[in-house]
C-alpha cells in the first residue's frame, strides 16, 4: 500500500475513500431510501386522479435530488471529521505526499460516490421517464452533487465542525437555488426600487450571484414531467460545474496548505 501511495497517491486515497463509503453501508442506505421513495410515489399515483405519471416523476425527481444532496454532504462532512478526530489526516500529511494529492484523492473518491448515488436515483426514474431525459437529469444531478461535495470539503477544512459545516452547506445550496428568484423579486414591480436601502440590497444580491453557481438551472424537474430537457442546457451545466469546482478546489487547497499539523 505504501509504495502505491508514493507512486499514485491520488488514486489510492480515492480508492480508500470509496471503500469507506461501501463499508459504511452507504449503498444500502441509498437503496433503502430509493425503495421508500418508490413506495411513496406509487401511493401518490393511487390518489392522483389525472397526470399520474407526471405526479410520480415530479415527486421522485424532487425527493431524490433533495435526499442525494443532504446525504452526500452529510457523508463527506462526517467522514472528514472522523478522519480529523482519528488523526488520519495528520498521518497522511506526515507522509511525503503533497497536500494537493490528499485533497484531490478525497475529492475524487467522494465524487465517485456522488456519481454512483446519481446513477442509482436515475435508474428508478427510468420507470416513468424516457431514457434520454433521465440521462440529462442524471448527469445534471451528478454535476450538482459534485459541487456540493467540493463545497462540503471546503467547509469542513474551514470550520472543522459538523454542525457548522453542514449548516453552511445547506444555506449555500438553498441560496444558490433561489438567488435568481430573489433577484427577480428584488427588481419586481411590487418593490420600491428607488430607495437607497433597496438599491443596496439589490446590489448585494447581484454581487452574491456572481460567486454562486447557477444551481437553479440544474436538475430541473420540468425535464422529467414535460420531457423538455435539451443537451444544450447540459453543456452550460457542465461548464458551470467545471468552473465552480475549480474555484472550490482552489479555496479548499488554500485552506489546507495553511493548516499547521
Amino acid at each position, binding site marked *: 500500500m505504501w509504495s502505491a501511495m508514493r507512486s499514485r497517491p491520488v488514486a489510492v486515497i480515492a480508492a480508500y475513500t470509496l471503500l469507506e463509503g461501501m463499508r459504511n453501508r452507504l449503498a444500502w442506505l441509498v437503496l433503502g431510501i430509493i425503495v421508500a421513495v418508490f413506495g411513496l410515489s406509487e*401511493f*401518490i399515483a393511487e*390518489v*392522483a*386522479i*389525472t*397526470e399520474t405519471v407526471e*405526479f410520480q416523476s415530479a415527486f421522485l425527481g424532487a425527493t431524490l435530488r433533495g435526499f442525494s444532496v443532504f446525504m452526500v454532504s452529510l457523508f463527506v462532512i462526517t467522514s472528514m*471529521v472522523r478522519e*480529523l*478526530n482519528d*488523526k488520519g489526516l495528520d498521518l497522511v500529511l506526515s507522509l511525503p505526499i503533497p497536500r*494537493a494529492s490528499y485533497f484531490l484523492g478525497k475529492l475524487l473518491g467522494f465524487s465517485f460516490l456522488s456519481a454512483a448515488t446519481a446513477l442509482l436515483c436515475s435508474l428508478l426514474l427510468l420507470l416513468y421517464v424516457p431514457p434520454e431525459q433521465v440521462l440529462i437529469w442524471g448527469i445534471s444531478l451528478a454535476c450538482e452533487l459534485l459541487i456540493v461535495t467540493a463545497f462540503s470539503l471546503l467547509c469542513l477544512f474551514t*470550520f*472543522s*465542525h*459538523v454542525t457548522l459545516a453542514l449548516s453552511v452547506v445547506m444555506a449555500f445550496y438553498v441560496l444558490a437555488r433561489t438567488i*435568481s*428568484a430573489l*433577484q*427577480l*423579486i428584488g*427588481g*419586481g*414591480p*411590487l418593490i420600491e426600487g428607488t430607495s437607497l436601502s433597496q438599491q443596496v440590497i439589490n446590489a448585494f444580491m447581484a454581487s452574491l*450571484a*456572481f*460567486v454562486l453557481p*447557477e444551481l*437553479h438551472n440544474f436538475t430541473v424537474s420540468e425535464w422529467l414531467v414535460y420531457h423538455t430537457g435539451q443537451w444544450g442546457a447540459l453543456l*452550460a451545466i457542465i*461548464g*458551470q460545474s467545471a*468552473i*465552480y469546482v*475549480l*474555484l472550490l*478546489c*482552489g*479555496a479548499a*487547497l*488554500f485552506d489546507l*496548505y*495553511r*493548516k*499547521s*499539523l
Partner: protein
Amino acid sequence: MGWHLECVARAIGRAGRTAETQGMAERSIRDVPRPVIGLLLVALGAQIGWHGLRPGPQAGAQALPEPPSIEALRVAALGDPWVTAKVLMLWLQAFDNQPGISIPFRDLDYARVEGWLARILELDPRAQYPLLAASRVYGAVSVEEKQRRMLDFVYRQFRLDPDRRWRWMAYAAIAAKHRLRDLPLALEYARAITEHATGPEVPNWARHMSVVVLEDMGELEAATILIYQLLDSGVVTDPHEVRFLTLKLEELRAGMEAAR
C-alpha cells in the same frame, strides 16, 4: 459535593475538546504554494466572467396550474389540512405577483382559480378567506363573465353551509344588484339567504334583503307576500324585527294602493 461536580464538569469539558472543536493552527499565507493561489484567482475570475457572460434571470409569467385532487392535497398536508389550506390561500392570492412580473387578476384562468378555491374550502370548510377572495378580489375584475363565475361559485359554496357563509352571499347579492345591475340574479341570491340562512347568527337585514330587491324590481306584491311568509313562519321572533317588517308591509301596501 461542589468540588466533585467541578471535577466532573472539567472532565466533560476536556473530553469535548476533540480535533473537531479545536480546529488546527494556521500557517502563513506565504506557505501556500503559488500554483494554488494562482488556481484560486484564475477560478474566481472564471466564475465571475462566466456569470457576467451568461444571460440574467428572465421574468416569465407562469400559468396557474390545475389544482390537484383533494386526496393528493390531504396526503401532502401530512395530517394538517388547515395549515395547508392557509398556505395555499396565500400562494393563490400572491400568484398574480410572480418574481419580476405582475399579472392582472383578469388574465388568470378563472376555472383554475375556482378549482383552487374549492380545494382550499374542502381542506378547511370553516375558512372564510376563499369566499372573501372569490367575492371581493377575483369577483371585482372588470370582466363581467368572470364576475358572474365568482358570484356563482360563492352561491354554490353558500348552499353547502348557509349559516356560516351568509355574509358572502349577501355581498354577492349586492354585487349582482349594483355592479352587474342584474336584479333577478340579486333576488335569487337574496332569496337564498332568506330561505336557507336561518341560524340565530344571521342578522335581520340579511334575511330581509330579498324584500328590498323585490321592491327595487317593482314587485311590490311579491315583496308583500314574502313579508307575510316571514311573519307567519315563526322564524322572526325579535319584536324590533317584527315591527320593521310590519312597517315595511304597510309601506308596500300604500305603494300598491297608489299604483292602482
